[in-house]
């Protein structure tokens, strides 16, 4: 018999004591490399451990994202925490449970198959034995590698998994307790702001220190290394005031601000690019009807509600960093490069921040604090970015052009599909070779990372969901990886999936219309995938979808579907909306199949969030450039980068298809594409004309109506 294959994170971190411990009678401690970013992952991990260890959830405490304690699971990203991290946790706990049952069998001198566990106590043929995890813990060595031989619970025996469980982290947030990294206060701590280098290569010309000190109204000090300039002091208000004054009183040289023309997707067409081709061989074009459409989306900000924050202390040769970033181990590796310390001299702890939705300023704020702390040994440093700083300097998700070329058969169905994409990279995380912002201002800045995007094996970046899941004889995608951009670009929820699904699912509607078919029936005619058909049929039933319902009178309905990365969770959405000069969302229905569901209410919460955020992107969001603003970024606060408000959110109904025998899949990103495309299709249904550029602003709606 072959040895069992360990889930990836467990293979990478095989020592069982890295995952599970029994620190005191009645208590279980588990460790995960995944971190809480508002998605409820810690609660789901505790549910998983409760089932696999047979203990009550309230016995379990969880630690996460800590280079000194937890498994190294890279990034908490890509909707993979449950699919990979959760499955690893299940297996680690199953192995631990098996070791304890073996030990109990020895102590009780009976066969292990007579034993079971109930809330941590060992039972023999259902009767208590006086033994439990804690009586046996001294004799069971968990400093051993996982073997994968522990049997994971069959679906029928799951008790906690599959039940809606209240989020463990929410009460502290509802009662206003100190729970976020922003709330940490260390003895002797100094507050700090970095006077941001506008971009790589810009250098400090002149600093009017006296003017800055005057503005602070309390003592502050400066720390400088090359073009890295920080202002710090023990009074947060004074440091804030000084940072605002520094906008005026620090003069930069060699500054080149982005211009308005560069914010538009079409600007990408003129840029140098690395061309990448994936999928089927070039098609024979003869005798087929051609269909071509071009869709675009602008730059987006993560726009996390809290500006990024990081703390660091360098004491006795050891650097300790606190961060809300998505990957403490990759951040540590990046700090090793930046600071010249050994990895063993750096500990990085995760502390919760606000929702990040991808690579925002978190890593950079931590690096800022670390760079300053290295210059002031023994002093804890807290860097909390300003609101404008987060908007201007966080990495943006890139603008994209998606051009669909399809060849149609006689019935108007696509038989050959090419999706051609112009997009800068979607990944400049530190762990992907991207630079920490502060490092660029230091005397010997690191080189530019080579042109790169998320590999196809990991779902692709700009190419994510670039091919329809539908049954089309030949599919390929071409990515012009644009290598020159005016601003830093990186990962935002779903990466390229949103613009790709928006383009391809709007095209499917356009094709259905050409063929005189109903959009739901047309989609079903293009796929034999049972799980795909199930979510499409389910959402149509939920929404009371009627084939041939007339639109064009200002109210419209649209449907869209995707399987995230074409290999993870399935989702279909129906949107109902009104359009006059602006769009008013009325209702969104969504059906999702994410395999085995760990926490149904948690999944629904995530799906709702994904729908609302995508709706906000589609209706409102675009980062605008303007070189008359010093930074060149004209979207620098909530007035210049508005997001969806309470009075603008639609009603949402969600149903889950719980495929219990399938792998559990993440859902944070699955609705981004289907929501966007369903809105696009509903707007077209309502107006009788199609808008192919996001966001769907008032100006674009008016222009589209006038064109008709």
């Amino acid at each position, binding site marked *: 018999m072959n040895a069992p294959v360990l889930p990836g994170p467990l293979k990478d971190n095989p020592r069982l004591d890295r995952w599970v411990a029994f620190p005191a009678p009645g208590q279980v401690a588990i460790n995960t490399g995944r971190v809480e970013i508002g998605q409820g992952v810690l609660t789901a991990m505790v549910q998983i451990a409760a089932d696999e260890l047979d203990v009550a959830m309230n016995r379990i405490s969880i630690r996460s994202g800590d280079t000194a304690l937890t498994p190294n699971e890279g990034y908490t990203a890509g909707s993979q925490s449950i699919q990979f991290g959760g499955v690893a946790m299940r297996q680690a706990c199953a192995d631990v449970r098996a070791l304890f049952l073996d030990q109990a069998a020895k102590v009780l001198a009976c066969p292990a198959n007579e034993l079971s566990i109930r809330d941590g106590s060992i039972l023999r043929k259902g009767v208590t034995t006086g033994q439990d995890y804690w009586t046996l813990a001294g004799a069971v060595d968990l400093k051993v590698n996982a073997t994968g031989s522990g049997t994971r619970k069959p679906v029928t025996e799951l008790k906690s998994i599959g039940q809606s469980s209240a989020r463990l982290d929410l009460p502290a947030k509802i009662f206003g307790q100190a729970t976020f990294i922003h709330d940490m206060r260390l003895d002797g701590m100094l507050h700090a702001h970095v006077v941001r280098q506008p971009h790589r290569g810009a250098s400090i010309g002149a600093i009017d220190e006296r003017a800055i000190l005057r503005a602070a109204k309390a003592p502050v000090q400066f720390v400088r290394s090359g073009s890295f300039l920080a202002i710090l002091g023990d009074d947060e208000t004074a440091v804030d005031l000084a940072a605002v004054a520094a906008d005026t009183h620090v003069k930069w040289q060699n500054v080149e601000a982005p211009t308005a023309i560069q914010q538009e997707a079409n600007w990408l067409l003129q840029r140098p690019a690395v061309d990448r081709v994936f999928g089927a061989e070039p098609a024979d074009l003869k005798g087929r009807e051609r269909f071509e459409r071009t869709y675009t989306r602008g730059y987006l900000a993560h726009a996390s509600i809290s500006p990024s924050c990081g703390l660091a202390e360098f004491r006795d040769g050891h650097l300790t960093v606190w961060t809300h970033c998505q990957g403490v181990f990759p951040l540590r590796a990046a700090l090793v490069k930046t600071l010249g310390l050994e990895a063993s001299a750096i500990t990085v702890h995760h502390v919760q921040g606000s929702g990040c939705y991808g690579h925002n300023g978190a890593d950079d704020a931590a690096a800022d604090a670390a760079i300053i702390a290295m210059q002031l040994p023994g002093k804890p440093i807290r860097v909390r970015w300003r609101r404008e700083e987060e908007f201007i300097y966080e990495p943006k998700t890139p603008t994209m052009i998606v051009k669909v070329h399809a060849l149609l058969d006689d019935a108007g169905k696509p038989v050959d599909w090419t999706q051609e994409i112009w997009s800068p990279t979607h990944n400049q995380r530190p762990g992907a070779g991207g630079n920490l912002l502060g490092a660029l201002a230091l005397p010997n800045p690191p080189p530019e990372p080579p042109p790169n995007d998320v590999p196809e094996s990991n779902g692709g970046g700009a190419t994510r969901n670039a091919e329809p899941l539908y049954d089309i004889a030949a599919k390929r995608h071409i990515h012009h990886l644009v290598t020159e951009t005016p601003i830093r670009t990186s990962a935002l929820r779903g990466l390229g999936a949103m613009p790709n699904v928006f383009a391809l699912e709007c095209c499917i509607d356009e094709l259905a219309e050409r063929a005189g078919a109903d959009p739901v029936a047309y989609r079903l005619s293009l796929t034999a995938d049972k799980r795909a058909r199930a979510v499409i049929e389910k959402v149509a039933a939920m929404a009371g979808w009627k084939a041939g319902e007339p639109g064009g009178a200002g109210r419209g309905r649209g449907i869209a579907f995707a399987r995230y990365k074409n290999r993870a969770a399935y989702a279909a959405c129906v949107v109902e909306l009104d359009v006059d000069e602006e769009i008013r969302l009325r209702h969104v229905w969504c059906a999702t199949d994410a395999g085995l569901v760990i926490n149904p209410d948690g999944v629904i919460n995530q799906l709702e969030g994904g729908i609302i*955020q995508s709706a906000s992107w589609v209706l409102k969001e675009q980062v605008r450039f303007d070189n008359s603003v010093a930074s060149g970024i004209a979207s620098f606060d909530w007035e210049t980068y508005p997001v969806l408000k309470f009075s603008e959110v639609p009603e949402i109904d969600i149903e889950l298809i719980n495929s219990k025998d399938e792998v559990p899949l993440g859902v944070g990103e699955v609705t981004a594409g289907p929501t966007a495309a369903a809105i696009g299709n509903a707007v077209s249904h309502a107006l009788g004309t199609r808008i192919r550029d996001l966001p769907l602003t008032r100006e674009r709606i008016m222009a589209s109506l006038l064109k008709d």
Partner: protein
Amino acid sequence: MTQTFKFTVNGKPVSVALDNEETPLLNILRNELGLMGTRFGCGLEQCGCCTVLIDGVPEKCCAKPVWSVAGKAIVTIEGLGTPSRPHPLQQAFIDEQAGQCGYCLSGIIVSAKALLDKNPSPTRAQIAQALDDNICRCGSHNRIMRAVEKAAAQLRAGVRA
């Protein structure tokens, strides 16, 4: 010149001595009084994370100079309830699992309290309008509005913290 400012926070008298009378109330709450529940979101009075009640009126305090609140009564999220004695709004937010990252919730719950103090039976549209000054980026809006409706019903039925 150091000046002393007196006001109340959650019913308790507070006196702070400061050199800078422009210091925002938010920084006093967090750095001088250790009340971390009122969050910093923008410092621009835009996002609502720092909403507190000032003499019963919901106001953003991230840019509210301390001199302007002298003699006033401030209520923060910590003044509503505790885990052992939750305010009906807090209980309803837990019951509805109304939040994702939770960073916006303190300000939202305080804004909702101000609404319910004034209007015990708000419609969904009135709740939305009352919360439009608070930004939630995670998309928990519908749960939050359901929680406010639920708390309103509880309060009408006489439930208190």
